[in-house]
């Protein structure tokens, strides 16, 4: 079974001649269809891990095997193509292009693929976008500007955008960080549903409730993964309090 394998990943920043080792020999594996959360204190390297694994930032050392493809040594163009067709991103700050409508933002990555450049391909993209928007409940705001919708709707639009090219994995950086409680629940419901459909998800979060919805949780500290815990696949009608308590006990033990 294909998986995302990370071996001895290091990331070092040099700021004003001072070396800052943010990631130190991190190794992990995310299997296809798995939903994994990364938790840890501020400055522990969670976000850097997410961006380095996804090729958004260059690694200083180490290897990333992306579902059978070795990412180390790929050119910037090859990594871009991989990001376009095989990865999806959901950011805390959404990062939508402000002079495009919600709908245009969603379909834009699909139009850049080789299949999305033909008339037939574009028709398929449009159809897929409509289905996705319907699934995520944002069809009615499709033609709105991005500043005319709520944070939750915007984040769901972001999820739509990340799914439009049917990626193997979604990388999510604090996907509910900018949302209220209700919107957070809605967004996490969508992410869980996507995961149940077979898409892997690696997310970074501070929120225990978000992490409790994941199959596995990694705890990172000082740039290295200290421990991990397997909570099992999330079920829709499962009692979340049990998962949250288990996670909480584990985190308390780690000094959270």
């Amino acid at each position, binding site marked *: 079974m294909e998986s995302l394998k990370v071996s001895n990943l290091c990331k070092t920043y040099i700021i004003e001649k001072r070396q800052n080792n943010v990631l130190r020999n991190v190794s992990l594996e995310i299997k296809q269809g798995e939903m994994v959360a990364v938790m840890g204190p501020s400055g522990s390297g969670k976000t850097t891990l997410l961006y380095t694994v996804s090729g958004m930032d260059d690694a200083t050392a180490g290897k990333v095997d992306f579902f059978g493809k070795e990412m180390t040594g790929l050119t910037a*163009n090859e990594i*871009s193509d991989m990001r*376009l067709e095989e990865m999806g*991103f959901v*950011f805390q700050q959404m990062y939508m292009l402000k002079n495009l409508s919600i709908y245009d933002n969603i379909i834009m990555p699909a139009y850049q693929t080789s299949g999305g450049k033909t008339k037939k391909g574009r028709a398929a993209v449009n159809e897929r976008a409509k289905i996705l928007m319907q699934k995520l409940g944002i069809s009615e705001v499709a033609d709105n500007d*991005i*500043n005319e919708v709520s944070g939750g709707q915007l984040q769901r639009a972001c999820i739509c955008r990340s799914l439009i090219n049917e990626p193997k994995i979604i990388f999510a950086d604090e996907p509910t960080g900018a949302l209220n409680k209700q919107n957070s629940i809605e967004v996490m419901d969508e992410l869980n549903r996507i995961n149940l459909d077979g898409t892997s998800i690696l997310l970074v979060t501070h929120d225990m409730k978000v992490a409790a919805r994941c199959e596995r949780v990694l705890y990172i500290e000082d740039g290295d993964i200290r421990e991990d815990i397997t909570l099992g696949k999330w079920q829709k009608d499962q009692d979340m309090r049990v998962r949250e308590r288990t996670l909480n006990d584990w985190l308390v033990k780690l000094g959270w």
Partner: protein
Amino acid sequence: MWKDYSSGYIKNNRSSGIAVMIAAFISALLLSLLCGLFYNAWKYEVERIQLEEGGWQSRIAGDIDPGDIEAIKNFARVKDAVVNEKAAQGHETVLDLYFDDMDAVLEDTPRIAEIAGISPETAIYNYELLAMYLIRSPQDTAPRLLFPMFLIIMGMASLSLIVIIHNSFAVSMNARIHQFGIFSSIGATPKQIRVCLLQEAAALCAIPVIAGNLLGIGISMVLIQMVNTLLGSSVSGRHQAVFGYHPLVLVLTLLVTVFTIWISAWLPARKLSRLTPLEAIKNTGELMLKRKKKSPVLTFIFGMEGELAGNALKAQRKALRTASLSLIFSFMAFTLMQCFFTLSGISTRETYFEKYQDVWDIMVTVKDTEADSFAETKEIQTLPGVRSAIVYQKAAAETIITEEEISDEMKSFGGFSHASGNDAVQTEAGWSVNAPIMILDDASFQDYCEEIGITPRLDGAVIRNQIRDVTNPDFRHPRYMPYVKGSNTVSILRKSGEEGTGVEIPVLSYTEHVPALREEYATVDYYELVHFIPMSLWKEIKGQIADAGEDSYICVLGNENADLEELNTLQAEINRIVAGAYVTESENRILKKESNDRQVQGMMAIFGGFCVLLAIIGTGSVFSNTLGFVRQRKREFARYMSVGLTPEEIRKMFCIEALVIAGRPIIITIPLAVITVGYLLKASYLEVEIFLAEAPFVPIAVFMLGIVGTVALAYYLGWRNVRKINLAEALRDDTMM
């Protein structure tokens, strides 16, 4: 990507593209102007060569049979073969060859020479003309610099423009770095981002490039007409330049412009596309307000607002670099140019026009003519409206001055001890010095004798007995003293550089008073002993003692206070008398002064135009900065207001920023101008009062006010956009969008 994103962005964000459009327009204008002027310079040179040398491309000479001439005319690629009777010497036939294809000249001429039975080596080529069409023969060793000069200047202009305008593109592109980070995060490749940025640059620059090119052609046309007006009548032998423009020049100009703009856009686009998505996405395009260094002067003068303004200016340093440099250079260049031309004008007036005002009105140079063979002297001297007319010629000779002859005053500053080896050579007999001879027509010499109070005679010389205190370098206020004691009754002159006895001529007088000629004495060689002799004496001694100059001169003084019209009439009369028999060049004092003034004004207009152009680049950049960063500045001000700053205090901060941008060129330039002018005044020995009375305060003040006003307007418009702040909206994290 372009269709999906860029077109919409350009439509909705026109103001942010203004800087780029201005930069493209100015580049196109300058390059088009340069190309237009160079093409016309080239065209003028071709016309000049054809007028002076003829339009023939090669020439063969010898005994050419008429039958052969017909055969040559029918030679492939030969356009025409014309017998040149003017150039023919003796019985030789000179045949000028014209080719359809100029490239064939070097190849076909030797063959044609062989047909005519002439040695191919004797063929002559019009190298000057051929070089204008980039046809160079290895035999032509002369440097033909027009094309290399054109290429160097175009290259330098293009490079300078890239340095200046790439910053405009960088500022415009960097403002959107965050958006390209988003692009990159969803899979856009660096190449796609680069192409997108370049497509946007192309869309923004298309109209400015066309407009700039057209205006450049128009300005070059006006400049050619200006050059005709300025030089048309005052440069002898100059033919009228006719403006022309070839479609290929337009193609070349467009290519150079597109290349310049493309490189300017490509440099920042490449840099931006090389950022990792994370680097790009984390950059919010916001002005990075970091407290790097304090601004003690601004803080001291304006308090807290001054410090905030200083901080904001430091944060915008890169964005404002083009503006600052352009404004500083434009104001500096304009001020120094004005001061320089004022100083130069005062100097020229004092040393030339005012000094010789009562010496000449019309000056005629009679080419290749000895004064003693000039027969029209009397006719000119008796023309109505002529106060005096001196016909004269110059000759070079040497004489010996013994130590005893040197005046006591000259001895007091060291005699010949300061003289260089070229000016005075010590010999056994004494000091050998140059003795220039001014040969005056007899009547004028007799008048001169009367002027200095001696009995007019035509058998001797009057010697200028004056020498400058060489220890005093102030050429504007020299101190003169007698050169020799003046007791000798004869002067021995001999040919320059030749040993020999020379010729003794009687000395009629030693004097400090010189005849009214437009001549300067002892300016280069301080030790020359000038002799004024009559034409009658010259006829006797000529050939024995001196080599006469090739040309003769007529120095005419018209009626007192004669106006231009009178002088024009007089000049025409004199030309009528001499034109038929001699080759002459004549000058008219008032016309020359007017022409000189026009040339200075023309040069000032051209230099001033470039200064204004630089100032436009600078102020354009200020406009684009104040109008293009509205969102970022709104957020910046919202932050200040959220911690208690009032709109009035923020307005003050805006005013301080404008004041610093507009004031910096002035603060830098004024001390520099004062130092430069002080140095030039010292070097030219001009009094400060004279300069101050004519100092270009008004144009400099107008230029300064122009800069200050435009910068103030840019900041006022920027302020109008920024002041309508909705605090909540402005403070909202715009990275969500």
